[in-house]
């Protein structure tokens, strides 16, 4: 993986993937919650492993996450990650207004299962649009959930890339509430495997140098 061959055009392509993918996911989330959900302009960064965990508030910050592997033409990892309070709100809304506790390991099977389903639907719509946009055959694995330290969770998505590099390309899209605009509801992280980048760029007719 040679990051020097990646031009601003390539980064724009990745940003567009994040834009379309997360756009569809935001619509799905909005339908599920029956309220408006907004998203920020996706950021695409080539960053060190340390910096990735900083994006979610530091390595020790506790988050609720759904993880899945992308299999097919352009394999990779995908995370849907929420600050713990936001996950409680989201699941509370989904489960008909009941109070959901996720902190301190006291969460119910029901809450965890709902979280998994949310992750499933959102990442499914993200991936479908990613696949439509590129014409690549992409399928999600069965999602897995974890409520734990952000660093511990994210490092799991870095193993493929870490065999070739100390840096990763992260496509990050943040969700916000329409009313409270600054409040970040969650993040989508797409981490393509190193060999997937050339496949994505080729599929869109902009091969790497």
């Amino acid at each position, binding site marked *: 993986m040679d990051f020097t061959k990646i031009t601003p055009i390539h980064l724009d392509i990745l940003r567009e993937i994040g834009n379309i993918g997360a756009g569809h996911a935001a619509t799905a989330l909005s339908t599920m919650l029956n309220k408006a959900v907004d998203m920020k302009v996706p950021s695409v960064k080539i960053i060190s492993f340390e910096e990735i965990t900083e994006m979610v508030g530091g390595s*020790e910050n506790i988050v609720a996450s759904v993880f899945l592997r992308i299999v097919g033409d352009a394999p990779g990892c995908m995370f849907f990650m929420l600050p713990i309070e936001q996950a409680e709100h989201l699941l509370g809304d989904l489960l008909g207004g009941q109070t959901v506790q996720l902190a301190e390991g006291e969460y119910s099977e029901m809450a965890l299962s709902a979280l998994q389903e949310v992750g499933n639907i959102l990442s499914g719509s993200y991936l479908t649009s990613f696949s439509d946009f590129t014409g690549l055959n992409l399928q999600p694995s069965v999602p897995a959930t974890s409520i734990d330290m952000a660093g*511990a969770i994210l490092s799991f998505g870095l193993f493929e890339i870490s065999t070739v590099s*100390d840096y990763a390309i992260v496509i990050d899209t943040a969700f916000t509430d329409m009313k409270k605009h600054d409040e970040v509801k969650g993040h989508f992280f797409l981490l393509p495997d190193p060999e997937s980048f050339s496949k994505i760029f080729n599929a869109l007719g902009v091969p790497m140098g």
Partner: protein
Amino acid sequence: MSEIVKVGIADIDLVTPPDTIRTTGLGSCVGVIIFDDRKKIAGMAHVMLPDSSLIKSASMNIGKYADTAIEALYDMLIKKGAIAKNLKAKIAGGAQMFQFTSGSEMMRIGPRNVESVKHQLNQLNVPIITSDVGGSSGRTIEFDPESTRLTIKTVNAGTKVI
């Protein structure tokens, strides 16, 4: 004033009292502490991958792999004045953060890291005094070279000292 030496992902560092050394958010990575309890010198490595033969690129970060990181940590300690026969180790991490029914080899990275770390320490004749490995929880660990106590914090299983 004592300070906390922070060790990042794929990083290695040394510590002497009154300072302590710490790494945060260990998932399937393994935190390896090697210490000389007489000379009061300790070091920590945050190992990400089991084996440097997995490497696919020319440049190499030795702190990333169990085999190269532990060797480097060992050499750093000896150079700093630690005595080889005094050296002991404590290890923590190697969790399986996500449970998958169809487990590929990459998904078993935690247990593989632990195996590799144990093997490498054995090669260097450094005994492992205590360990807290496996499970499905992330860990933040902090080592005090004075008392040689390793404090392990988890989200789901509380805090313990080994």
